[in-house]
C-alpha cells in the first residue's frame, strides 16, 4: 500500500494525544491512592489536557486531507454498526470533548464529589471524567487498529498484533511526552512517568518485533493462479490493459525499492525504540528536560517511519493484476 502522509500523521498524532491523556489519568489515580504526590491541577492536568487536545486535533485535521470530499465528512459517522472507520469517526470527537471537560474541570477546580468508596476515598467529577476518557482512549486505539486489522486479505495487518502495536506505541509516545512535560510542570512525577514510558516502549518494541517476525514468515494466499483462475505454475502478465496512470497503480504500490523498506525498518527500530529507551533511562534518572524532549522527538519521528513501513509492507492482492505496464 502507498503510505499517505495524512494517515501517517493522523494515526501517530492521535496516538500521542491518547497516550498523554492516559498518563494524566494514571497520575491522578495514583495520587488518589496516595501513591504519588498530588501535582498542581492548574499546570499539570489543565495544561496537560490542552497539550493532548492539540495532538488529537492535529490528527483530526490531518485526516481531512485524506478525503476526496472533506466537506461531506460528517456523513462518515452513520455506519458505526458495520464500519470501524465510522466508529473511529465517532470516538475521536467524543474523546476530544472529554479531554476538554477534564482540562476545564481541573482549571476551574470543579470537583463535586460523586461518590464515596467504602474505604473513604472520594470520587469527584475529575476522576470520573478521567475514567471515561481512559475508556474512550482505549476504544479509540481499538477502532484505529481494527480499521486495518479487519481486512483479511491484507494479511500483514490482519492480526491482533496490529491492535497491540497501535495501543502500545501510542501509549509509549504519550507517556514519553508526559515525562518531558512533567520535567517543567511537576518534576516530582518525572521519574514515575519516564519509568512507565520506558516500560511501554519496551512492550511496544516486543509486540512490533513479534509482528515483524510474523509478517516475515507470511506466505501469500492469493496468487496469479487464483487471481485469474488458471492452474499453471508459470503465468506472466504481459499487459495491464493500459499505459497511463490509474488509481490502481498509484494507491496500492509504495514505489520504492525493496532496500528502502529494509532501511526504514532499521531506522524505526532505532528511532522509535532503541534511542528513546536510552534517552528515557538517562532523562528519567537525571530529570533532565532536554533529554526527555529529545526522547519524544526521536520517538515520534521513529513512529512516523514505523507507520510508513506498516503501510508499505502490506501487499494488496489487487497488485497481482498490475504486474506489467503496456
Amino acid at each position: 500500500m502507498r503510505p499517505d502522509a495524512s494517515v501517517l500523521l493522523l494515526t501517530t498524532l492521535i496516538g500521542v494525544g491518547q497516550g498523554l491523556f492516559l498518563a494524566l489519568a494514571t497520575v491522578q489515580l495514583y495520587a488518589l491512592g496516595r501513591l504519588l504526590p498530588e501535582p498542581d491541577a492548574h499546570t499539570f492536568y489543565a495544561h496537560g489536557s490542552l497539550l493532548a487536545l492539540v495532538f488529537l486535533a492535529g490528527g483530526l485535521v490531518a485526516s481531512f486531507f485524506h478525503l476526496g470530499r472533506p466537506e461531506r465528512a460528517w456523513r462518515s459517522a452513520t455506519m458505526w454498526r458495520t464500519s470501524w472507520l465510522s466508529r473511529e469517526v465517532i470516538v475521536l470527537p467524543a474523546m476530544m470533548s472529554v479531554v476538554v471537560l477534564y482540562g476545564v474541570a481541573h482549571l476551574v477546580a470543579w470537583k463535586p464529589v460523586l461518590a464515596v468508596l467504602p474505604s473513604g476515598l472520594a470520587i469527584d467529577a475529575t476522576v470520573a471524567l478521567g475514567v471515561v476518557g481512559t475508556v474512550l482512549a482505549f476504544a479509540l486505539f481499538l477502532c484505529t487498529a481494527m480499521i486495518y486489522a479487519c481486512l483479511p486479505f491484507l494479511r500483514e495487518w490482519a492480526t491482533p498484533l496490529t491492535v497491540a502495536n497501535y495501543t502500545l506505541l501510542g501509549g509509549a509516545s504519550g507517556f514519553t511526552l508526559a515525562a518531558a512535560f512533567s520535567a517543567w510542570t511537576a518534576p516530582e512525577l518525572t521519574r514515575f512517568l519516564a519509568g512507565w514510558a520506558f516500560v511501554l516502549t519496551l512492550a511496544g518494541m516486543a509486540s512490533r518485533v513479534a509482528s515483524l517476525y510474523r509478517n516475515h514468515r507470511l506466505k501469500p494466499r492469493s496468487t496469479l493462479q487464483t487471481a485469474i483462475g488458471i492452474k499453471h505454475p508459470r503465468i506472466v502478465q504481459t499487459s495491464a490493459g493500459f499505459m497511463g496512470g490509474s488509481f490502481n497503480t498509484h494507491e496500492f504500490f509504495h514505489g520504492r525499492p525493496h532496500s528502502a523498506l529494509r532501511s526504514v525498518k532499521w531506522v524505526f527500530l532505532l528511532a522509535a525504540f532503541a534511542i528513546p529507551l536510552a534517552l528515557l533511562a538517562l532523562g528519567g534518572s537525571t530529570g533532565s528536560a532536554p533529554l526527555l524532549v529529545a526522547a519524544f522527538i526521536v520517538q515520534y519521528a521513529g513512529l512516523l517511519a514505523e507507520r510508513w513501513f506498516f503501510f508499505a509492507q502490506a501487499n494488496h492482492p489487487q497488485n497481482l493484476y498490475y504486474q506489467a505496464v503496456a
Partner: protein
Amino acid sequence: MTQLALVIDLNVCVGCHACVTSCKQWNTSGSAGPLTDLEPYGKDPNGAFFNRVQTFEVGEYPNTQTVHFPKSCLHCEDPPCVPVCPTGASYKRVSDGIVLVDYDKCIGCKYCSWACPYGAREVDPGRRVMTKCTLCVDRIYDPALAEAERKPACVMACPTSARLFGDIHDPESEVSRAIRDSAGYALMPEWGTHPANHYLPRRKTPMRMHEDELVRFDNPLKIDAALPKPPKSDPSLDDVMSW
C-alpha cells in the same frame, strides 16, 4: 432473489478492448457525470475505468497460451467493500444484487477500495469519489431502449459474444447454464466473497462431426461405398462433379 452478473468466456475473448471503450463511453456520458480522464492527451494521462482487459501468458514456449482477461467489479454476493464504508455510500441492492456507490454520499476515503481484493474500485480523479462498474444499471431497466438492448454496454459491444449477462440465481438462465455446462468459476475463492461474475475457462474446442459429413446425403444411388472414380479427363471439382 435475483443476482445479476456477467459471465465472461475466456475461451472466446480476443482482447480487442471493445468492452473497455464502450463501457467508458456509456459511463462517461450518463447523468452520474463524466468518468474523468486527467490529461488524456498529455504525457502522463490518468483516468478511471470500470472495466479493464489485461493479458497474461500461460506456460512456456512453445506451449504457451495468451489469455485475455477482462476484469470489472464482480458484484460479490458477500461483498467485503460494503460493510467497511463509513457513510453507507457503498451498498448492495437487495432487488438485483448489484453493488453500487452513491456518488452524492461518498466522501472519497478510499477505504472500500482497500477492502476489495480484486482492485475493482477506482477513485474518479475529477469527481474525487469512488466509482465502479454499475452493470449499466441505467441501461438494463430503461424502458426507452429496445428489449434486446437492455444489457450492459460491454455485453452489447463484445464482437465475439464472450460476455453473457443475466441472473445467476435463476437456474435456467443463460448465465447459469453457461456456468454449469462450461465449468464457470469465481476469482480468488479463498476470501469467501462469492463473486457473482463468473469466468468460463479456456478449453479445447472439440471438432464437431455431423452425420452428413460421414455419409453423403447427396448420394443419388443411396449406396455408401467408394464413389466411382471419375475419368481422368473430367474436371476435378470433386464434390460437385464426381458423379
